[in-house]
């Protein structure tokens, strides 16, 4: 796999506090890599280090094998789309998009042609002569994208580009952005705190927390097998129940969640042997309901019921006081179930996560 960009042991310190790292990231040619995490996790700092707007305290940055750690932004060949778009308010759309080409001394007729073409790619023809404040949020977003793309950078960086759009437009733009990225085959690093965006758009996701990397993987891998407590609770809905490992054979483990309830689960790497404590992760949609005394089911009582329209969310409490969330389709059988009812919970595709 060819690498477009490599971050080697990048560290960013502000005074005595380490804001980021050390982190290692490899961006593959043509992929859309997402940096996902809560605010303050270091994802934007990482992006600014790649763009050259922030200088790392330590580490190296390689763009197609070339060391660009100390190269100033104008010489980096990187396109960046800002969260607030940062369009030049005193310039028309055409002038905004042409800016990077002018700085590169591209001949005028070619500039005109390339601006026209890229505005078509982002789906914004006929706005050349307007000013940014005459466009809607979605249109400005496209202009910002066009302005970054028109210089044909080796890497496109997107800093929460959808967060200023309303919910409906955001969903539409996600798919469109992904579509443009794939059509142009441009290597992209995308920063977001929104896991839905990360899931829908990315080839790979890097989950960050507190300035370090929690986990790297495909969206599916991150959802299915979180490796840490943070990963499990940040991504998707999860019930985390303390448990004790009874048997461990490779990935497959048997755990005891107390009150003599035993559950089979798959373990993440680095799980300690039998007798040690761990966390049992269940996803609400992977818990199904059955008779309280059914084989393999955990006997529970419904303690809470939330009607969500197409689904119903139950809190299932065991005699030991553990709570499993359970999300089931909103069909008649489930609608009739009310708090207080005793049910059996079938826990499927459970995961064991280290306690720390």
């Amino acid at each position: 796999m060819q690498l477009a960009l490599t971050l080697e042991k990048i560290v960013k310190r502000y005074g005595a506090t380490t804001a980021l790292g050390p982190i290692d990231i490899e961006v593959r040619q043509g992929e859309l890599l997402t940096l996902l995490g809560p605010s303050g996790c270091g994802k934007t700092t990482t992006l600014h280090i790649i763009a050259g707007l922030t200088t790392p305290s330590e580490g190296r940055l390689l763009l197609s094998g070339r060391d660009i750690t100390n190269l100033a932004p104008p010489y980096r060949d990187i396109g960046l789309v800002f969260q607030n778009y940062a369009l030049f308010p005193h310039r028309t759309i055409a002038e905004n998009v042409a800016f990077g080409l002018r700085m590169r001394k591209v001949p005028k007729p070619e500039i005109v042609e390339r601006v026209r073409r890229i505005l078509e790619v982002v789906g914004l023809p006929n706005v050349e002569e307007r000013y940014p404040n005459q466009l809607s949020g979605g249109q400005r977003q496209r202009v910002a994208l066009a302005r970054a793309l028109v210089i044909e950078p080796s890497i496109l960086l997107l800093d929460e580009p959808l967060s200023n759009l309303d919910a409906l437009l955001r969903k539409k733009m996600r798919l469109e952005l992904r579509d443009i990225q794939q059509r142009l085959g441009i290597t992209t690093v995308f920063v977001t705190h929104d896991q839905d965006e990360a899931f829908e758009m990315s080839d790979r996701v890097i989950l960050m927390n507190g300035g370090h990397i929690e986990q790297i993987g495909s969206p599916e891998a991150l959802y299915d097998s979180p490796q840490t407590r943070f990963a499990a609770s940040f991504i998707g809905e999860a019930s985390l129940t303390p448990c004790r490992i009874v048997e461990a054979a490779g990935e497959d483990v048997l755990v005891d969640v107390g009150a003599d309830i035993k559950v089979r689960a798959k373990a993440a790497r680095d799980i300690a042997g039998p007798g040690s404590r761990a966390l049992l992760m269940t996803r609400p949609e992977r818990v199904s309901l059955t008779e309280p005394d059914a084989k393999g089911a955990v006997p529970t009582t419904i303690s809470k019921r939330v009607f969500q329209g197409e689904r119903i969310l139950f809190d299932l409490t065991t005699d030991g006081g553990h709570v499993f969330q359970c999300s089931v389709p909103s069909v008649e059988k489930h609608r009739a179930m009310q708090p207080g009812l005793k049910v059996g919970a079938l826990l499927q595709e459970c995961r064991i996560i280290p306690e720390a």
Partner: protein
Amino acid sequence: MTRDNGNGGGVFGAALMTPIGILYLFFLILPIGYFLSLSFLTYSAQQMFVPDPTLDNYGRLILDGYYRRIIFDTIRVSLIVTVISLVCGYALAYFLATMKSGLRGIMMFLIIAPLMTGVIVRTYGWIVLLGTDGLINLLLVSTGIVDKPLAMLNSEKTAIVALVHIMLPYMVFPIFSSLVAQDPHLVPAASTLGARPFRTFLEVTLPLSRSGIVMGSVIVFTMTSGSIVTVDLLGGRELTVMGQLIYQLIMSTFNWPLAAAVAALLVLCQFVLISYYFRKTRRGY
């Protein structure tokens, strides 16, 4: 984008304008109108003016070389002061805008502090500094750089230096506001697109601070062209401006009709230059 005026916004707006409107009418427009109307009356040594309509006052200002020189000097010096204040003020404002906020507060205070004393006090400050036995001459003579004290007072250059010093805050603050109001992401955006720092300044920062430049220059130009005391105390015989002329005509010569004509001409000059400037610098977005 549409502007929402709301229902009855016009009436409400008019109501808000009433108090200041009345104040302006009785204490500004009427007295100034009365005074300016004197410029069309005939001067009389005995009665100050007699109600014979005439354009002689204006004719004299335009035809007499002495007055023409004063009008020309006023505009020239005001333009010079405005340009120097703009260059120095922009640098200072830029410096302030890029500064950390703690230090910035102290700097702002230092810039505002002179405004707390009067123009006369500040002008005397320059006399103390530049006089024959002033601080600078004392230093120059005692260190042997010059044999006898330099005559720095009573020259046009000194008046210009002092005027720039007095006007600087009025230039700095509008520009400073227009700089800090800019989206801080624009400069990094330009740099990732390939613009080097100076180019970014020319293409982004400078054009976007236009409103501050325009406001600052207009304030400084207007105030300088109307200044009296500073030029009077520091300009000596070399420089006379219209403000001084009006003062002399009213207080010593008692030729109010001519004074009114000078005042009218001064306002007209300011108005014409400022509206031309506004037109030239109107933003297109």
